[in-house]
């Protein structure tokens, strides 16, 4: 199989039963993506995945076989920042608004939020809460996560307006 992860192409033989998350962690060294459960409840392993012509969408990489990612393009938390290291608006907002404590759920939470904002650029508090309910956090009570996602949404809208004006 061949998969593009965070801008690099990786070619491997994999066992058919290998999950994408294990392929990422154990073969490709992409250990920024983590495993929190074995029932696809927690969302810690969320990454963005898309095909050649489709925009990347969030998937729980424990619920995707590695071979299903053949030919796909995957963005993990390690590849979300710009090539110059500039943080994504959601990453910045998580830091600014203290939306993480232990940080274990954070990669999945951030990528799920990025995907949520792709569908809805101005979510209400309830929409954020509903939109992220596939990702569990045990530290924050979600309150600052919700604030951060809405703050990032505002920043992204602002950036888009400036782009349109320019």
């Amino acid at each position, binding site marked *: 199989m061949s998969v593009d992860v965070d801008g690099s192409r990786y070619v491997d033989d994999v066992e058919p039963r290998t999950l994408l998350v294990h392929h990422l962690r154990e073969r490709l060294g992409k250990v920024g993506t983590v495993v929190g459960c074995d029932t696809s409840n927690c969302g810690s392993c969320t990454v963005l995945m898309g095909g050649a012509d489709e925009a990347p969408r969030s998937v729980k990489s424990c619920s995707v076989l590695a071979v299903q990612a053949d030919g796909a393009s995957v963005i993990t938390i390690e590849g979300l920042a710009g090539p110059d290291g500039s943080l994504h608006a959601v990453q910045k907002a998580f830091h600014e608004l203290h939306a993480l*404590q232990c940080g274990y759920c954070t990669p999945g939470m951030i990528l799920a939020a990025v995907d949520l904002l792709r569908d809805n650029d101005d979510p209400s508090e309830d929409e954020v809460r509903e939109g992220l309910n596939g990702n569990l956090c045990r530290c924050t009570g979600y309150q600052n996560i919700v604030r951060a996602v809405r703050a990032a949404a505002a920043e992204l809208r602002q950036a888009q307006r400036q782009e349109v004006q320019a």
Partner: protein
Amino acid sequence: MTSTLEPEVGAARRRKEDARLITGRTRWTDNIALPGMLHLAILRSPHAAARIVRVDVSGALREPNVVAAFSGADVAEIQGSLPCAWPVTEDIVHPVRPPLAVDFVRHHGEAVAVVAARDAASAIDALEAIEVEYEPSEPVLDLEAASRDEGLVHPDKGTNRSYTWVFDSADAGTGTSVADVDAEVRIQRRYIQQRLIPAFMEPRSVVVDPGMGEYTIWSATQIPHILRVFYALLTGVPEHKIRVIAPDVGGGFGGKLQVTPEEMIAFLAARRIGRPVKYTETRGDTMVSAHHGRDQIQDITLTARRDGTLTGVDVKLIANMGAYLGLVGPGVPILGAFMYNSIYKVEAYRFECTGVFTNTTITDAYRGAGRPEATYAIERAMDDLADELGFDPIELRRRNWIKAEEFPFTTVAGLVYDSGDYDAATDKAMELFGYDELRAEQIKRREAADVVQLGIGVSTYTEMCGLAPSRILGALRYAAGGWENAAVRVLPTGKVEVVTGTSPHGQGHVTAWSQIVADELGVAFDDVEVLHGDTRTAHKGLDTYGSRSLAVGGVALVEACRKVRDKARTVAAHMLECSPDDLEFSAGAFRVRGTPDAAKTIGDCAFAVFAAHDLPDGVEASLDADATFDPQTFSFPHGTHLCATEVDTLTGRVTIRRYVAVDDVGRVVNPLIVEGQVHGGVAQGIAQALHEQAVYDAGGTLLSGSFVEYTIPTAADLPTIVSDRTETPATSNPLGVKGVGEAGAIAATPAVVNAIVDALRPYGVSDVAMPCTPERVWRALKRGPGAGVRSGPAVSAEQVMPGAVHADRPGGES
């Protein structure tokens, strides 16, 4: 040089820890891969109680990629027994707990055999080739029946009762006897603290690298230092040949305050095979093997006068230990023993707790550890007392709590509360909450017989934290002390390295400790590096739990910084050609009194001692210092939480409409971090009230063995809370800090359940068993004597949930 440095302590500094965590450049234990490393898989018991007739691992050894496999019998002579560091009574029954079961398994999920293979998948596959013959027996699951020795978990011990621990204020001389006080009114209640699972997000993982007689161990633990001591005691490897590292650790909440079977099994495997090994558990493993929390039956009796004066508190607990004693498991209810009187002035107090074995996973510390249970019982019962006497619940509490001018106050449990202002916190909470408006709305809804009723719940609380004065721990028969250590190293260029014995796993110590050092030494926040969690760099410490890190470890840090400053003062005086007494330390530098431009910073002094060309005679060429702080007393944060719930009387659905938390945690180092701790604690408290319960079936199988059945709340399940603070500095430490880690989890549970019961009192409901699911609320309503019958008989938990009163009674959720 004049400087107007803003104080760092009190500033909402963004966390230094975040940069790695938001970019995935993290070091979880499971990320570690060493050359030649093998992966472990553990075979676990499917039975709650069985004799092991035979284990045959030879099949596993024939599987591809398998390097080793062994069972408990293979290591029976060398594996020892997992430790309990808190044998709370002299005659405690303390059964042997082998890391790998040898002759008997005593709970579902107990480790039976282990496989080491080239990769994790091969190890897991090979488990299927291990043959185990069990002779199952009837498990002991019902806690009350177990306390009566109806079936034995450890037949050789002859009883399930591990210990009975008693406090009586009449004997202690801190009050009178509960039998002697005025009892014009008596409120007698039974509450069930259901079994919970800490459910940290990072499953536990351990890597053991055996060198030539020395061992490096990485573990997802809260307690690298304590773990190192126990590795030395249990394995015979000398302590100086053991290095324990807690790298990035993904949450704990008490759940990683343990010396685990898996840590010992990994060690045994590494020593046996002579290669590095890693064990990373699945979530399914976590649920059955990592310790659980709570699980107590609480009988509480309040006595009072008709004028609302609380006179006595009498508490009798049965605490479920699970199948064995955990590291501090027996002590967990004892941490609650001093808290049932809470913030109230009481004449008499008696507490009795019996720890009882059952065929279940062990229980041990979970956020709050004993104190949430205590607060729940007293705060629920105070609401019933208020109802009985016709008082507003807050008014009743106000009549009984300690007034601000009465501190320091010696309680009926014998603790000296140093400071607090319960009126201030409550008044602020009521204002933020809109208490009077909500009460008015509640009356309207009652009069209109609204399908959705409004309930208002209050919980005040205090807790003893900052664990702990070593002498008191010793008196309570805890094996270790409660001090904490810090070391400060000033580098030649004026940068500072801080070594702390605390071991953060999400709390933001690196940021907060940097703020403290910045103020103490007048250096920049970014010029401080905080080192922790590795016994080679931080050799001395007692780790992180019990809201102790700042109140003990932070104070040790301040003391170390002050030693550095004292050393630097001598050097600065020499450079400025004045007496040390002529110097004052202000705005980041030593300044000659009256000539503030003549100044030397810590950095100036650091370079001077580095060069060491011109030091006064007898002055050491170093500014470095360390300090060990042992608190004289606990710290006592407090607060008032208010919750408004809307309860749908047709469906039983509970919605939290408003939640206000006003906490007094003393002086605050970083308000952002404090607020985050409150949010997370309140979320876990709400989760106990509404969402979570570990349930066993009649055979002792954990039914809630994954996140499908054990329903920790999602973002969609939780409200936005309003949090605020009052601030009465602790007088017991130079920082004035009290601790915040557990506060939210302590106050939230009774606040939520009080609100639900408050909504349903007109329906004759006086209790709903936790978690208050829609089904339970609905059943409580159905069994109530009917709407509007206020004086109807109280509905007990037994009536509300027949057969499910006990958290672990078989088939509880029928």
